[in-house]
């Protein structure tokens, strides 16, 4: 029993990782259902209806189920999978090791963070079994759709459970953030300067700060939404709303207020997801070229700038909401300029790799994949940051392509890189390189095959969150492209079996790993024990700063 409620940061880190993996399967299956519906909307899906009878009507998917699918896919992937794996999982396991501390600053608080996250996962999954269905207003939960129970079935109990799950998740993340900050800033081994730390540790520092300062905005908004739903207030509900012919009483509030509060968190949140992978990539480049990244200090400054500026760009999600043109211009400026520190990272990475001998291990491949995704996804972001271009592309598949490539893709590849890289640390064995390479190549190909064509679909006018695009004449020609994308997505999903196979068979059957199988210089490898504080290993002195 004490093993389950362990206070050891390594156990807690693995608990986060395994829970996130389970949630990833759910999130991935939801995505497949979405893709199947978009590509072939009028097909008979009776064989799926056997497993999910509530979502289908004589084999045809119900539109409200589709809305719940994209809502829950986004919510689960962003919070319960990627944040949990990268920050809860890797962060918890590695921060104390990388900073030379015995454990996190507050081990009991750390365990509590995990269990609250676990509880929030149960709540969000439970919402699938509510009679009126899970939340269906998008992961963005814009009111009045999310506030009025009659607006869509999912806005009944499902939306409440969504809000409760999010509240619990935010508590978990906040407690975790306090632990991370306290450990990195105050529990570092004496003599270890911040500038000695791997860039992954820096990314955890910034992620903790971002989370602590940004999540409260969503907390505030969620409390107000709960009040609007249950306490008769009108924070977000304007006067004179007529839903299906019925006048809703009260009002005077502002739906746009929700958008401001939501995106004030929402934008830093996407950087929370991306920064760990940026840190991991730099560290992989360090280990597998045998030399520290080019411009280590600039990389730190770049991460700091990206983090700071992430608080100033949220309005770019609202360019077409009718906000004042002056505000629009201001946000366009900040959004476009955040590409400057991002560019610094890309150029420094190229300089880190140019003319260097590379060890193309699986983690290194994933890091190179992140490099590619960061460039591709970052560029499409620049398009969207200009107000006039955004008019045409907002709420189209172009946006879906953008964030899946840069945010989801970079985060996902970061998880794979981290798992392969730290597997020997976690479990004392190596994962299979062959399976790892095969998994990487398949994922790299199918990831781009799935998401790159969405740029074109968006340019040709395909809107988002649409149950049946072919209701529109002008979108009918996109049927073939959508079919292609769905097949690529199915191939992508199937490819992940390679990872799970590799992971689980290597747990028992992987070749035993030495103490430092990658010849890395960071403390999590060069320490032979987590207790006590032996001198840094011989390799750390050999790596030039």
């Amino acid at each position, binding site marked *: 029993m004490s093993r389950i409620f362990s206070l050891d940061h390594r156990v807690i880190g693995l608990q986060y990782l395994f829970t996130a993996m389970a949630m990833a399967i759910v999130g991935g299956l939801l995505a497949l259902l979405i893709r199947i519906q978009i590509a072939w909307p009028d097909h008979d899906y009776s064989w799926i209806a056997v497993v999910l009878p509530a979502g289908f009507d004589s084999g045809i998917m119900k539109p409200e189920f589709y809305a719940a699918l994209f809502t829950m896919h986004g919510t689960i992937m962003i919070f319960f999978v990627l944040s949990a794996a990268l920050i809860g999982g890797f962060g918890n396991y590695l921060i104390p090791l990388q900073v030379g501390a015995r454990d996190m600053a507050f081990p009991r608080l750390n365990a509590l963070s995990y269990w609250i996250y676990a509880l929030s996962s149960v709540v969000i999954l439970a919402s699938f079994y509510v009679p009126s269905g899970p939340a269906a207003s998008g992961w963005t939960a814009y009111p009045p759709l999310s506030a009025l129970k009659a607006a869509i079935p999912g806005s009944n109990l499902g939306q409440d459970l969504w809000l409760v799950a999010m509240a619990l998740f935010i508590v978990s993340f906040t407690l975790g953030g306090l632990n991370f900050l306290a450990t990195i800033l105050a529990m570092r081994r004496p003599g270890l300067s911040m500038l000695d730390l791997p860039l992954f540790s820096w990314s955890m520092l910034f992620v903790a700060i971002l989370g602590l300062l940004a999540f409260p905005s969503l907390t505030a908004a969620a409390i107000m939404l709960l009040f609007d739903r249950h306490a008769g207030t009108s924070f977000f509900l304007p006067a004179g709303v007529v839903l299906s012919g019925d006048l809703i009483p009260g009002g005077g509030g502002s739906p746009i207020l929700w958008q401001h509060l939501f995106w004030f968190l929402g934008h830093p949140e996407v950087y929370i997801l991306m920064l760990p992978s940026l840190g991991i990539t730099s560290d992989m480049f360090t280990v597998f070229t045998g030399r520290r990244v080019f411009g280590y200090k600039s990389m730190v400054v770049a991460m700091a700038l990206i983090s700071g500026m992430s608080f100033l760009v949220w309005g770019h999600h609202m360019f077409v909401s*009718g906000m004042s043109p002056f505000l629009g211009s201001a946000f366009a400026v900040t959004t476009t300029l955040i590409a400057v520190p991002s560019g610094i990272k890309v150029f420094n990475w190229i300089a880190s790799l140019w003319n260097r001998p590379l*060890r193309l291990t699986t983690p290194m491949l994933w890091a190179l994949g992140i490099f590619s995704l960061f460039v591709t996804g970052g560029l499409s972001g620049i398009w969207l940051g200009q107000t006039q271009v955004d008019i045409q592309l907002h*709420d189209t598949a172009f946006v879906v392509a953008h964030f899946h490539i840069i945010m989801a893709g970079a985060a996902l590849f970061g998880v794979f890189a981290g798992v392969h890289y730290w597997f020997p640390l976690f479990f004392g064995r190596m994962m299979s390189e062959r399976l790892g390479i095969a998994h990487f190549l398949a994922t790299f190909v199918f990831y781009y095959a799935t998401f790159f064509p969405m740029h074109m679909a968006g340019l040709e006018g395909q809107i988002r969150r649409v149950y049946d695009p072919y209701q529109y004449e002008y979108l009918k020609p996109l049927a073939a492209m959508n079919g292609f994308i769905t097949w690529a997505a199915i191939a992508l999903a199937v490819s992940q079996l390679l990872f799970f196979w590799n992971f689980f068979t290597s747990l028992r059957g992987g070749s035993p790993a030495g103490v430092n199988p990658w010849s890395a210089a960071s403390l999590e490898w060069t320490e032979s024990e987590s207790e006590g504080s032996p001198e840094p290993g011989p390799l750390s002195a050999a790596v030039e700063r």
Partner: protein
Amino acid sequence: MVEAQHTRAPGNRLWGFMLESPGNGGRLAAVFAFLTLVFVVWSGYAIATSVLPPLAANRGRIDAAISLNLIISGVVFLGAHLALVLILVRRPREARIPRENMRIEVLWTVLTAAVLIGLLINSEIDARALGSRETGPEEPLVVEVVAQQFAWNFRFPGEDGILGRTDPKLVDQAELNFIGLDKRDPAAEDDIVMPQSLLILPEGREVVIRLRSMDVIHSFFVASFRVKRDAMPGLATEFSFTPTATGMFEIACAEHCGLGHYRMRGAVEVVPRGEWLAKIKEVTE
């Protein structure tokens, strides 16, 4: 630290060149590099040849901006991925790349910022142009667009040029009064209410759209006009454009608004100027 052993392979120079790539699999690097190249070529071609819906309004600046972005991002995309490919296949030289070089960092940072600022200036110019009204003697045509779950309501102010009063309490779906028009208001007498989800516009005359919503947030999107604006409940926003081609164009709702979001389709028919009034009378009879 790992130092790769470099020896010149005899025979075919290209293959030897590739086999000499560092890493624990020169072939792996080659395969990865090849896949990257395939991706770059395929994606570059695909996006460069993708076509926006045919332009039918005076908002071609957006098309130009998209083309500009395509070129600039294309260069960076190609450049970065070419660098990746070269990194994978080139034989490394122990060159004197220092671990830090402030000057080069400043150089590429300034270059990036300059390009981005150029895009921003262009964006600002475009935004102002797109947001401004036409200067000309002709009065724009005002259209009120009211979105609801799941249809579009259109109304012209008629000859008095004033849109009649509406009141949410007067909404009567049975009477087909979807927007709550107050029929007792004299200004409402000559208002022309279109059949739901059908808008007819004259070609070449500026249109001012006054957009709002009855219930949840919707978004008025006509891909061919390069027009998109959220329809907010409790707030009316305005924007303008001029249709420049005749034909039938589809209106899509571009903000998730409920289970009928996918079928919230409308039609805009643009007819030659002379025929507009007659067409309106025809459909509102």
